[in-house]
Each structure stands twice: as C-alpha cells, then as structure tokens.
C-alpha cells in the first residue's frame, strides 16, 4: 500500500491539466514566435516525417510524466507494510530427523524419504509463525543442527545442508531424543515439543529410547513420533559423504512401531505412520492443528520511503525530453 507523508501536496497535480492546456491547446501560447511568411525567405517548411512526429509526441509524454513523478515524489510517497507482532510466546519445537542410510530408500517419490521429509519439514516451518524451531540429526550419534530459533531462514538453510550418513550408519533414536531434551532445558516456552522422524529400529547410542522418553516426559516435552516407509524390500541409492562413493542396493524396510508408539504415549504425544509423501504431509497437518494455540497479535505498520525512485525516474525522463528536443531537434527555445 502506498501512503504519503504530505498528501496535501498532491493538490499540485491539479495544475497539470491547466499546464497541458496552456502548452498544447491554447491559441495564444507563445512557445513559438510567430511571424509572417513574407519575411521568411526560404522554402515552405516540409511536413514532418512520421518518426519525427512520433519523437516529438514521445518527448511530450516523457515531460509530463516527469512532472507528475516529481509532484508525487514531493508528497513523500512510501510503501507501508503491515507487520504482525506476536505478543504471546509460541512453542519450542525440535525436529529430530533420522540421517541413517535407509532414509535414502526410494519408496518416497520424487527422490527418497530423506528429501521428502526435508520438503515437508520446510512447509511445516513455513506454517509456524510464532514458534521456535530447531533441528537435531541422528545416526550412530546425535547432534544439534540448529538450536530452537525463530530465524526460519537459518532453519531452512541448515535443513537444505543436511546430508545422509554424516553420523554413521546407525539409528540412535534414544540419543536423538536426549540431545533434543538437552537443548530444550533452558526453554521458557509453555509447550515443548519434539517431532521424531525415523524409518528404522533403534540400534545404536548410549541412551536407550525409553530412558530418553522418560527424561522427556519429566521435562514436560511432548514427543510426536513418525514412522516413515512402506513395508517390504525397497531400492536405495546414496552417496557416502566421507568417501564420495555411490552406494546402491535393496533394503528390508522396517521401523519399530511398538517402540515409537510407546515413546509417544509416555510423553503425551502421538504416533503417526507415514507410508507415502502425501501421508507424511497430512501427519504434519495433524500436528499443526494439534499444536495450534490462540495467538495474541498486534499489527504494526512499517513504512519504506520510495520518493527516490520517483525522483530518479523524473530525472531520467526530463533528460530524455531534453535529448530529443534540444539535441536531436535542436529546438532553440
């Protein structure tokens, strides 16, 4: 939306039609000096060519546009944007994402489970506008990728940068939850949430998943667990980040549904199976609606002045008029 600092000055625009009349239609206008043909000793003026008439017309249009742009600029135009200021505290959400090689299984189109999960997570991040979101990745070990933050740009950047197998081939579900809890311990948010995405059985890590779930439950962290993948044999293909070799093969896909269910019930969360990209998306829609709170919002107006653009445009147009009339046509007055 465009607003003006001094809209009163826009009244000056009313002079433009008058000036237009004076310059182009008024019979007594004096831009030319008229004198009798008897003292003109040269040949009768030839009729102007089309291109000349066009250039003249164009220069006139440019001049009037320049004048209008100057008048608008003088009124102090600025673009104003509404900014929503959240007055209450949102959730703290840690996304715990499986980085084990089985996530490269190609049963999730277009690429694999991992890329699909990344895409869905990004959409999820885009929908949460007042929550701090962080990411933990886990393989043999677990590590924090982004601390819980409302700087969604950074969250998305780091999500893009995540690769499979950066922490070995294992699946340390317990470690993933535990690391997430460590990074939620200073959180003052009322609702602390962990969303665990995995496609395998727990087979690594020093902390067993149920102990981690117990810690989470004590801290009041709700854990939503999502088991991804179809049952049966699926092809996988991935690049080993340490050697750069391409690994291809087939794996027997299997996640531990009982364990995931138990973790979620212990922590007041919920378990969701996701067998396709579409169902993964709907899982996040569900979580979205489960974790929505009433938001108190104030709207601030932010303004960004744009007079400079108008002045620059006016200057260009004026110079264009000048070039056409005074340099090309050599108008003497």
């Amino acid at each position, binding site marked *: 939306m465009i607003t003006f*600092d*001094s809209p009163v*000055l826009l009244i*000056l625009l009313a002079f433009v039609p008058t*000036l237009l009349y*004076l*310059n182009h239609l008024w019979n*007594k*206008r*004096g*831009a030319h*000096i008229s*004198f009798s043909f008897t*003292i*003109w*000793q*040269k040949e009768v003026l030839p009729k102007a060519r089309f291109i000349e008439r066009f250039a003249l017309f164009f220069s006139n249009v440019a001049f009037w546009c320049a*004048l209008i742009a*100057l*008048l608008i*600029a*003088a009124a*102090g135009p600025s673009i104003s944007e509404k*900014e*929503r*200021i*959240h007055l209450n505290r949102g959730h*703290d959400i840690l996304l715990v994402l499986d980085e084990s090689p089985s996530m490269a299984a190609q049963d999730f189109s277009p690429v694999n489970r991992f890329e699909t999960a990344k895409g869905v997570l990004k959409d999820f991040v885009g929908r949460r506008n*007042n929550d*701090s979101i*962080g990411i933990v990745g886990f393989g043999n070990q677990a590590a*924090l990728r*982004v*601390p*819980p*933050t*409302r*700087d*969604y*740009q*950074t969250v998305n950047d780091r999500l893009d940068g995540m690769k499979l197998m950066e922490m070995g081939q294992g699946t340390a579900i317990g470690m993933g939850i535990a690391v997430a809890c*460590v*990074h*939620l*311990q*200073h*959180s*003052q948010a009322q609702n602390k949430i962990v969303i665990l995405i995995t496609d395998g059985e727990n087979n690594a890590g020093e902390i067993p998943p149920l102990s981690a779930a117990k810690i989470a439950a004590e801290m009041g962290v709700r854990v939503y667990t999502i088991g991804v993948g179809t049952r049966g044999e699926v092809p996988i293909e991935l690049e080993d980040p340490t050697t750069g070799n391409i690994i291809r093969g087939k794996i027997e896909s299997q996640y531990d549904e009982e364990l995931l269910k138990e973790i979620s019930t212990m922590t007041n969360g919920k378990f969701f199976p996701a067998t396709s990209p579409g169902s993964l998306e709907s899982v996040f829609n569900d979580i979205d609606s489960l974790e929505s709170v009433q938001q108190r919002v*104030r709207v601030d107006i932010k303004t960004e*002045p744009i007079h*400079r653009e108008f*002045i*620059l445009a006016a*200057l260009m147009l*004026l110079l264009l008029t*000048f070039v056409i009339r*005074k340099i090309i046509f*050599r108008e*003497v*007055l």
Partner: protein
Amino acid sequence: MLLHPESLWLLLLLLPVGAVLLRNYRIGRKEFKRVKGRGPVKRLFDVFTIKWFFTSFFFLLSLLFIILSLTGIKDKREAFEELPSDKDVIFAVDISRSMLSRDIQPSRLERTSVLINSIIGRSNSARYGLVVFKGEGYVYVPVTEDLEAMKKAIDTISPSLFSSGSTNIQAGLETAFKAFPAGEERRKIVILFTDGETHSGSSTAVATTASKEQITVDVVGVGTTQGGEIPLSEDRSLRNQSGEVVISRLNPVPLRKLSEETGGAYCQMDEEGSLSELFACLSLQQEGENIRFIEQERYQLFLLVAIAALFISFLVRIIPWRGTY
C-alpha cells in the same frame, strides 16, 4: 550529512546540458540573422534572448535541485522510546587472522570468547545469536534461548571456520541485522567484536539501516593500539612481501564513529580493563527509556524548489510576450 553522497556526481550532468543550451542559443541567433529585416525582427530577437535566458536558467536550476534532493540530506531528531524488556542480542565476531594476535592474552579471539561466555552467563532473560564474519558474514548460531548451543559454538570460533578474504565489518553487521527474527517486540542489540582493521565496507550505510530497524550496535574494540604480531603457527608470524613482520593494531577511530552513529556504546577490551568494567559499558544493561536519534531525510523542500523552477522555465516559454509587435 548525506545519505547518498554519490548522487553528487550527477551534478556533472549540468555541464553538457548547459553547453547544449548555449549551442542552441547560437543556432537561434544565426537563424535570426538569416531572417532579413530590421525593427520587428530585432525586437523579436530580444524577446528570444530574454526567454531563452530565463527558461534555460530555470531549467538548470530545476535540475540542480532535483539532484540535490537525490543526495538525501538528512538531519537528526531526538525521540524517546520505551525499551522492551526482552532482548535479542547478536554477537558479531570478527574472525579474521588478525584476531589471533596476542597483544592481549591469551589472544584477541579467545578474550572475546571469554567475554561472550560471561555475558551469556550473567543475564539469562535474553536470547542470543552468533554471527562470525571475515569478507562476508555467516549466522553461526541463530537467535536462540538455547545457551548450550551458544556455549558450544563460542568454543569453536576460529579464523579457519571459513575461508574468505579481507575484513568487511559492513557485511558482518548486515548479516547480524538480518538474523533478528521478525514479528516480536524485543530489543535488538548487536555487539560487534573487532580489531577495526577494516578493509572493505562502509559504516554510514550500516548506521542508516540500524537506525531504521531500531537496532543498537555496541562496538567492542579488541586489542591494543601498540598492536601485536599475527601468528600463523607456534613460532611463525605473518610477514609482508618485503619480509617484515606485520603488526596488527587496534584502530579505535572508525569503531568509535560507528558506535556513535548507531547510538550504541564503544568499549575497549585491552589488557587493563576488567571484564566487569566492560560489562558495565555495554548498553545491554540499560533498561527503561532511551533517547534515540531518528534520521529524517530532507528532500521535499528541494523538490518543491525544483518543481517551481521547472514551472517557471516552462511558463516563460509558453506565455506570449505582449506588445512587442
């Protein structure tokens, strides 16, 4: 104070424009000479000269004022503001090689880490973020409440985090400004740690953004003015092409200017000052009300003069001159 001093170059345009106007006057005079006869033609020529002079003069005047309005002449206005009690603090840390210099012990960078750690430890009502920069800036830790993540990250900052040339304080600060999450009512503070050996970037542009976004920039000058060598390894220091050891010195003048322009504090971290003195110096402590300078661009007056001049130049052209013939 000019917001866009580079626009002054446009004034050079007035020269060719003036030259063309003058040339056209000559052409006009020649045409009049070709028209034979005296009396009315002579008077007409006078009218032409007068009209030409005024229309050209006011056209040039109009261009001049349009260009002046583009330079963004600004003045400062004082405004009281209520400071929100919640704070977002982003540490912008220079990780160029000169920060390894040991003119303060154990090194400029390590001393910086210690200070950041102690700030984090002391006030926990704030959220913190960490931006590291050299030639460009990088959000190392986004603004977060998670102190564990901050502490871990602080211990790992070193010049080898990423490779990029020179030191660009502007790039570092701009990265920091963008890292503040939008849509919350929190005070935004950037604490810049650098030895001030800036090699590229301009501080005026940064100050303008900071004041617009209501960001306070505190500057901590790290190092001593006597300076120190820049170690490359245990027993080797950086040398220039002629083989002399390069001495890196704290350059407080531009840093002080930067902090003044953004309404923040300038603190010096050298051997003498204690941590608590430094801590007291930072505007982090300040609560309640604050006076902020709001920069206002003055261009409307110039534009109005320009428009008036353009009108006159225009009217002189079209208004008929009565009574000359």
